[in-house]
């Protein structure tokens, strides 16, 4: 495949601007809008543009359908990035990537996780800084890198001393290694070495989120940063030690941002966002990629091209492609659409989520407002996936075991559906029609999502059960949001919403159970009969199957156990009067 692809790699210094660039440069001035409108054809970019380790790459349809890891290994001759699973589940292929969308279209709400991060976020905001984040290069198409600066292990390596020393070096600090690599080296964190470049890059991504003020990663920080990186040799103990030993201050000088987010690179990439991009199929390459600037244009394209697939992070499409279950021929990306990555909490009450908002952004904005949900998201895939995968993508995919559907169903989320005419709102509960079948019609796409943060007396709980606690697809998941109301006679269950994943062909709202629970009074003596009846109803509504993750029996037993666990929780909450606001956060990594 390497010989099929035509690529132009231009060193930045040469700056032999392509004709497109000139238009791009013009498009940044104030008259650009009308200009681009009147000159549609000329204005369309026919290459995606990104920077790789500081070099500008412009790729047309012949190379844009490659996954990044193949592009690195086969086209660029950069074999430091390894591929093991080819499905974003092992982290060996980790690289870091920053998307240089112009300010205004980047996210503007981020609730920091730690003090250090708060500092980082505010610094980043001040400088309009874009974050370098760890991603899986094995499932991201070159086309999706449009507007990004990508750094591989070769880019992380200190450039000054690129030739390895001729002898086995002493275990002394060596300037040819960055602080991260130094600590991995001397903590014996590399045995066979196949996962090591990915681990170094995942740590680089994690460190990049911190500030020089932070000192060290805690053990839990280290584990959280590397949840997406499998190692089969070390048992992780030396890797955890290495990560904890990293001197953050050292590791940040120079930062990836200073090296690969220079003003020159940023300016070149920001220009990308003012021009739509259309890679058209050629005789050699049956691949089309369209990235419009507006939702209207996107809907028009979808209407004309019903076979087109919308790609956001491609964390599912990339896998289907690699595993030869789907050939990706016609894709549309919404990354150039303004404000598409936003997550915004309005009046501390309503959360708005853009069509390209990532799980990580979403998690950040929930951290304060709805910690139960944020903690649940810690178990969503890996940092690499959360950094790119979108909330909307997880729903649009319509998997019966997607992690986001059950919580959003019980939160009564509404989807914003863009059409070529007027946008409309659709209840998420009406979205899932059958196995991987949704209510989206030809020419429609999901442009966003909104829901209200549960208020006083709403007991919101989420559960995920999987074969392995982290980095795994749910065997079964469940979401509960039940209103407890004080009546004269005691506590009453008000509106109840319950949804399960992994128990039917779609993420399932349990309407019968909800109706039965609503209006029921909670009394100590009636708890057991209430549970028994509720379980009976639950079992009548679900239809789990046996598959490689678990048997149908296991799913049934766990489904009722989770309901039992929730009802006990509800009962306890009603007893101790903690009804005011359910914030009893259970961090998934500090169970019991």
């Amino acid at each position, binding site marked *: 495949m390497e010989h099929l692809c035509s690529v132009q790699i231009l060193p930045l210094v040469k700056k032999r601007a392509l004709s497109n660039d000139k238009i791009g440069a013009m498009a940044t001035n104030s008259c650009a809008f009308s200009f681009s409108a009147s000159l549609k054809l000329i204005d369309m970019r026919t290459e995606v543009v990104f920077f790789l380790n500081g070099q500008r790459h412009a790729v047309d349809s012949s190379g844009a359908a490659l996954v990044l890891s193949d592009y690195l*290994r086969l086209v660029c001759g950069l074999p430091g990035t390894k591929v093991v699973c080819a499905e974003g589940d092992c982290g060996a292929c980790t690289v870091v990537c920053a998307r240089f969308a112009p300010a205004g279209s980047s996210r503007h709400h981020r609730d920091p996780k730690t003090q250090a991060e708060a500092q980082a976020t505010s610094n980043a905001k001040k400088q309009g800084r874009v974050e370098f984040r760890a991603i899986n290069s094995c499932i991201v198409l070159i086309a999706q890198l449009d507007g990004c600066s990508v750094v591989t292990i070769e880019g992380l390596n200190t450039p000054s001393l690129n030739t390895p020393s001729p002898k*086995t070096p002493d275990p002394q600090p060596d300037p040819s290694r960055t602080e991260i690599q130094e600590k991995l080296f001397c903590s014996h964190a590399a045995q066979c070495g196949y996962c090591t470049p990915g681990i170094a890059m995942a740590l680089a991504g994690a460190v990049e989120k911190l500030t020089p003020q932070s000192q060290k990663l805690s053990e839990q920080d280290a584990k959280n940063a590397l949840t997406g990186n499998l190692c089969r040799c070390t048992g992780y103990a030396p890797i955890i030690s290495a990560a904890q030993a990293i001197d953050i201050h050292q590791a940040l000088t120079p930062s990836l941002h200073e090296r690969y987010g220079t003003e020159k690179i940023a300016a070149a990439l920001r220009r990308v966002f003012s021009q739509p991009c259309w890679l058209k199929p050629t005789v050699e390459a049956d691949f089309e990629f369209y990235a419009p600037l507006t939702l209207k244009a996107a809907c028009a394209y979808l209407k004309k091209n019903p076979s087109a697939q919308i790609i956001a992070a491609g964390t599912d499409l990339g896998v289907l492609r690699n595993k030869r279950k789907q050939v990706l021929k016609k894709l549309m990306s919404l990354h150039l659409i303004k404000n598409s990555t936003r997550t915004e909490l309005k009046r501390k009450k309503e959360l708005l989520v853009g069509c390209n908002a990532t799980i990580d952004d979403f998690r950040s904005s929930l951290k304060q407002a709805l910690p139960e949900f944020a903690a649940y998201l810690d178990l969503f895939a890996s940092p690499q996936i959360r950094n790119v995968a979108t909330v909307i993508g997880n729903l649009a995919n319509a998997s019966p075991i997607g992690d986001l559907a059950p919580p959003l169903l019980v939160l009564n989320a509404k989807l914003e559906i863009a059409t070529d005419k007027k946008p409309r709102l659709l209840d998420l509960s009406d979205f899932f029609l059958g196995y991987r079948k949704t209510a989206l019609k030809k020419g429609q796409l999901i442009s966003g999502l909104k829901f209200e943060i549960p208020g006083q007396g709403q007991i919101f709980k989420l559960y995920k059960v999987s074969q392995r606690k982290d980095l795994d697809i749910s065997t079964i998941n469940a979401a509960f949001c039940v209103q407890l109301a004080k009546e004269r006679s005691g506590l009453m269950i008000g509106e109840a919403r319950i949804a399960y994943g992994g128990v039917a062909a779609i993420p399932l709202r349990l309407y019968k159970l909800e109706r039965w629970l609503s209006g029921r009074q909670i009394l100590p003596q009636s708890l057991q009969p209430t549970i028994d009846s509720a379980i009976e109803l639950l079992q009548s509504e679900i239809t789990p199957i046996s598959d490689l993750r678990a048997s149908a029996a296991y799913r049934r037993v766990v489904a009722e156990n989770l309901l039992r666990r929730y009802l006990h929780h509800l009962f306890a909450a009603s007893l101790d009067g903690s009804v005011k606001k359910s914030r009893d956060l259970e961090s998934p990594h500090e169970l019991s």
Partner: protein
Amino acid sequence: MNSRKPSETDANRPHDSAHLHVRGESEFVDDIPRLANEVFVEIVQFPIACGTLKKIDTAKALKMKGVLGVFSAHDLSTNLWGSIVADQPLLIDKRGSFAGEPVALVAAESREIARRARDQIRLEVQADKPLLSISEARRAGAIIGSTRTIQRGDCDHALKAAPHRLKGKVVIRGAEHFYLENQAALAIPKEDGQIEVHCSSQHPSEVQHLVCHALGLSSIQVVVIVKRMGGAFGGKESQGAPFATYAALVANKLKRPARITLSKDDDMIITGKRNPFENFYEVGFDDEGKILALNAEFFSDGGAYADLSPAIMERAMLHLDNAYYIPHIRISGQICRTNHHPHTAFRGFGGPKGVITIERIIEEIAHRLGKDALRIREINCYGESPRNTTPYGQEFTDNNLPRLFTELSASSDYHRRRAEITVFNQRAIENGDRFLRGLSLTPVKFGISFTTRHLNQANALVHVLRDGTIHVSTGATEMGQGVNSRIAKIVASELGIDSSLVRLMSTSTERNTNTSPTAASSGTDLNGAAALLATRKIKFRLSHMAKHLFETATEKWPSKTAPLGTEAEIAMPPTPELLLDASSTTEAENYCGMIFQDGFVYAHTQPSKKIALESLINESYFSRISLSEFHHYKFPGLGFDKLKGSGRAFLYFTQGVAASEVEIERDTGMCKVRRADILMDLDVPVNEALDLGQITGAFVQGMGWMTTEKLFYQDGRLLSHSTSTYKIPSIQDTPREFNVHLLPNTKNTVNVRATKAAGEPPLLLAVSVWTAILDALKTLPHHRDALPQLELPATCEQVLRHLDPQAFTHWEAQ
């Protein structure tokens, strides 16, 4: 000039490739730059578990642009192969025996085209009824090899006479190696019909043999090179060879370089796993819990072909005793032939299957007698004569087990925690709390040697170069375990220099032939000993030369006089036999009183007068003294008769203990390891840091098998063939508290540098995680009468089944 002096950190020097690993500069097979004209190979796989191959329709694939050929069984000179028995076809001729079995090879200009072409090949097959489990195979009488037995004493009589008897069964499932670097090979045709093969294999000599055998070449035409592997764990001991052969076949046919790199999915579907076992036992014991007699029958799932299963079964049988003296014992083992991929070596080989069985038996005895399992372990532990002979008659001389038990139960605070957990669980059961806890302390005694005697040999080639650096080649292959670093350290210490001056070259059949696989934890023991002895021979000559130089005026030294030939050359005596005993330590008197230290050589009688090693080497060169050596080494004293099941099977035993505490969630069956404490006896490690890495790595790898790693088959097809469905431990699964220590110990006098092997034994310590889960479950009232029949791995579902068997019975009855 580089400092020759060993640095202070030399004893714990990082892995010899670590500086490359962290920069992504280590070259693995698929990283070798694409060669001009290179072709890519993909494997067409048999679609069903068992049947006849009627026809391969390649017409559509061959028409595709970029497709260069499809090769099948007819293209091979000899098709059947096998490490022990040649019963497996490289490519199916008529009979297909497992789903995923290689049928044909597609060669194309690129991987993408090869994959698309593979999808276009149609196979016509006629399905037969497959055998998909041990019990099905036993019913059908499908076996591999004959039943083997090891016995001592009068088992039947002692069982009858025992005050207590228990009968039981343990079901042990397989596991995937999950090396990160998938199987890969690159074959390059050379002049005169030669082929150079770069591959990811633990056994380059076997690859060489197989390539020759399959292609009809002689061994001098094939060179096999292994630079390093991205993990292997036994999965590349025998099973790397066919893939290298496929690449060689295509390279030979097309006269173009050919590369094969499996996807993780293909790799998992095609290659064999750890053998599943079903073991049955009857044990007799006294009121204290002392085992009086044990009768055990082992059945393994060998898969479709023998592969290494006979040797694996043997090791399982040889490890049923584990740490315990069992006076009357009979162990029999039979391999069953099924329609699964041929199961193969995996870290621990058969060892864990024997150990798991006896550890379950101990748990059962403890449960029956209402005693703590640790007590039962301690009273059955090997001790003084006569309680120090294994069932196969080998005397267990170097017994540190009682000390290990005592020290770990103290350092892990076992008894206090046991009491706390008892209270915690009682309360949890009374109140219906969400969690139960379990604690278990288990030992390992792992025999070091291949049980097949002739494999216990190695050879090494050592070249001393004129700048004072050393070039060492052995048959050992580097798979992350650090064998190169250890051998370098052994050689460097012998010469009194820093190990950064020693480089282990890639493993190549051009330099070392007739080698054994790097397996059975013996890589350093065998190859390190060979390298040490080769080095001693050179050191002996250097010491003679040094003595001569100290007695000669410098102006008459060879570097000054040799060009004109004015001085006579020194005569060199033969190397004394004593220096060729790897277990001996050598002193200055063996080397003309010369001491090699910090890059210098001096007479112990006159430490002030020194010569730099580099100068000594140079002077030796001018005196025409050989600076190179080759040495062959074999483990001494082995004598295990496989047919009788008795004799000295092992050179020595690596020992250790682990205490694991688990917590299980009662409504989901999810499990976590709260704490693990490990204490191992490795005597004098060559590189302690690397050994600790082997311990933590093996333990966590073992934990995966004990808990989350589930192979799911449907009609014989493996469906859990990728990371999304097969769950090895993630960083979050590591024990929340993880204490690893080595026992300060005397020297292991039989082995090179008084060290002990660390590769496999710690994996068996993870059994403590599984027994800890049993420990948690057995506190439930419904298990009061009998220990739960917990399978291994104890997945969430498996655990929940035993937490709430009634619920499962209810739903499964419907």
